[in-house]
């Protein structure tokens, strides 16, 4: 993203999400909540892209940070009863921020000892970390343990999801385009050379990790107040993989591509669900002629991923040449 357009984009997107929130009551709730999922996926994928794409560190524990943010914000907002519009949004903002900070702290805690590792080793450590968070939550009676935690308030709306998605995009894009941020790309391109040029690679890696975790925590808060029910099982390894797939499919270090991939991968399963539900099609006599898609939906989804990776290994939406 061109840096000069970034501020215009941020203001435009904030205004657009505010306007969208005003007409939200006219949108079918099923679609409305899918938009929330899309916004949350964008925040997750773009923040993970800072770690996996721009900085070149392979993290498999992003859902773990999301869980920290989700539970933290839910515990905070559950302290309050019914509130008026302004109080509710104020508390929600504070809770989201607190969730982000808690996740960032978790990112710092894992980052400092582990980011001296490289490549595969780091991937395994982050994988282990994600699982640790899940298991801790599973055994914490205060947040319902395996029974799950009911979130009393459904405060997530279009303004918060897409507004925060815009902020995430703005922060990540501005960061990697700043003088300071070139360090991330240097770490990605050649860690040894970067170190030789006097870049503190560990510090850069920890920074990327903490910022990425912060936004994952915020996404967790949005998730908690949209689904209104949290179980530790919802933040497992497979969830982390989903976000990694979004980053790889969009093209590592390509923000626009990653946003598109996040939208596509969230809509795809629902789109296939819709196809299977069509009751009549011209040219077919049977009822629900595409009903078979319903049963094979996840196979189609996986096959599409395989085909996309085989045909566009550089990322589905890499329009520019990769920075190398």
């Amino acid at each position, binding site marked *: 993203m061109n840096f000069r357009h970034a501020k215009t984009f941020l203001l435009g997107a904030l205004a657009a999400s505010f306007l969208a929130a005003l007409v939200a009551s006219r949108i079918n709730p099923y679609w409305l909540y899918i938009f929330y999922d899309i916004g949350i996926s964008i925040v997750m994928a773009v923040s993970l892209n800072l770690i996996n794409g721009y900085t070149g560190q392979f993290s498999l524990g992003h859902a773990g940070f999301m869980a920290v943010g989700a539970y933290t914000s839910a515990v905070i907002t559950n302290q309050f009863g019914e509130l008026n519009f302004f109080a509710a949004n104020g508390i929600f903002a504070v809770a989201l921020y607190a969730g982000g900070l808690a996740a960032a702290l978790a990112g710092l805690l894992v980052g400092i000892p582990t980011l001296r590792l490289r490549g595969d080793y780091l991937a395994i450590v982050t994988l282990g970390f994600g699982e640790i968070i899940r298991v801790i939550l599973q055994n914490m009676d205060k947040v319902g343990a395996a029974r799950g935690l*009911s979130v009393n308030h459904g405060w997530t709306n279009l303004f918060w999801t897409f507004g925060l998605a815009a902020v995430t995009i703005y922060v990540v894009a501005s960061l990697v385009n700043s003088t300071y941020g070139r360090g991330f790309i240097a770490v990605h391109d050649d860690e040894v050379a970067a170190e030789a040029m006097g870049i503190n690679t560990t510090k850069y890696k920890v920074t990327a990790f903490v910022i990425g975790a912060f936004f994952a925590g915020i996404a967790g808060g949005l998730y908690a107040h949209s689904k209104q029910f949290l179980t530790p099982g919802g933040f497992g390894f497979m969830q982390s993989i989903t976000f990694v797939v979004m980053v790889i499919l969009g093209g590592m270090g390509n923000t626009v591509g990653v946003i598109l991939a996040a939208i596509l991968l969230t809509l795809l399963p629902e789109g296939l669900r819709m196809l299977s539900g069509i009751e009549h099609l011209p040219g077919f006599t049977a009822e629900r002629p595409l009903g078979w898609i319903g049963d094979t939906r996840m196979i189609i989804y996986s096959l599409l991923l395989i085909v996309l990776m085989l045909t566009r290994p550089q990322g589905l939406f890499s329009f520019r040449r990769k920075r190398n």
Partner: protein
Amino acid sequence: MKIWPGQFLAAAAGAVLLAGCNQSASPGAGGDTIKIGEFASLTGSEATFGQSSHRGTQLAIDELNAGGGVLGKKIQLLTEDNQSQAGQSATVVRKLISSDGVAAILGEVASSRSLEAAPICQQNKVPMISPSSTNPKVTETGDYIFRVCFIDPFQGTVMANFARQTLKLQNVAVLKDVKSDYSLGLAKFFKEGVAAGGGRLAAEQNYSGGDKDFNAQLTAIKAANPDGIFVPGYYTEVGLIALQAKQLGITVPIFGGDGWESSSLVTIGGAALEGDYFSTHFSPEDTAPAVQNFVKSYQAKFNETPDAMAALGYDSAMMLADAMKKAGATDGAKVRDALAAEKNFPGVTGTITMDAHRDASKPAVILEIKNGAFKYVETVAP
């Protein structure tokens, strides 16, 4: 080629918003059919239960339609899969209610997924009947949420009484799945029941659903020398636990709850499970004519013997249809009132009466594993 995110997002948001606005909900009772939604774990880790439950429900709907439907209309069952994943049930139930406009919701087997859907049904005033979620919290969500199965406390208490009175056990051990809410609930009420009956808890060990090796826990239990082990888990782990217990030389009976109920249990555990017991909702060996008719038509349609999940799925759909007939309408509030007033409903899983908490009050069945098959032992009334 360059695309600015701003332009792209604006275009995408506009297009998607339009798509959303155009979707209009059709009323559940519109036209000549009544739409009923079902959400189930047809794929994923608990697919065995989800598939059974779905088949039972489907059979009930087919029988109702063959008999002329409900209120003179055919019933259309819309089934959505949640892949046994957290977060999916909320999405599919919102779809069923707001896009398909169903009159009522049936589902789910797992309590955690029912808990995700229940607040949405309550908000939209759409009655929901869970066939086999045993967690008390499910129906506490609100007055539109019902269930046709008994709840965890009852099963834990039944097994405690069975262990104390029928098996005459003094000293029991508990091995529970800390990952599963269901397992924790059963274990809690079992322990209370044993203590109330004057028994002693010899040992208590934990495992995590998905574990393959239970030797550490079983060795600790063996050291405590109990005369019975309560394992309120799901069949995959229970089969392995039974196998490994026999290998360690543990010969005392193992018993548990309805999470054992699956034909896969004996496939995994084999001969190690001989003489073990579990409580459940239903036995196909029951000689009551309603049960035998159900077993016969289920076998004819799916070529297998129905399990408890299938029977409960069947009862949930039948009770919903009964309530709609009594209410004389498919309107949410009227069906809700009719469901709350259900008394002595003749289900295949026993006579069901809705109590004040919208939980079913009904008998439980104890089965023994003999020669690789489930044999009926006794029925315990509430």
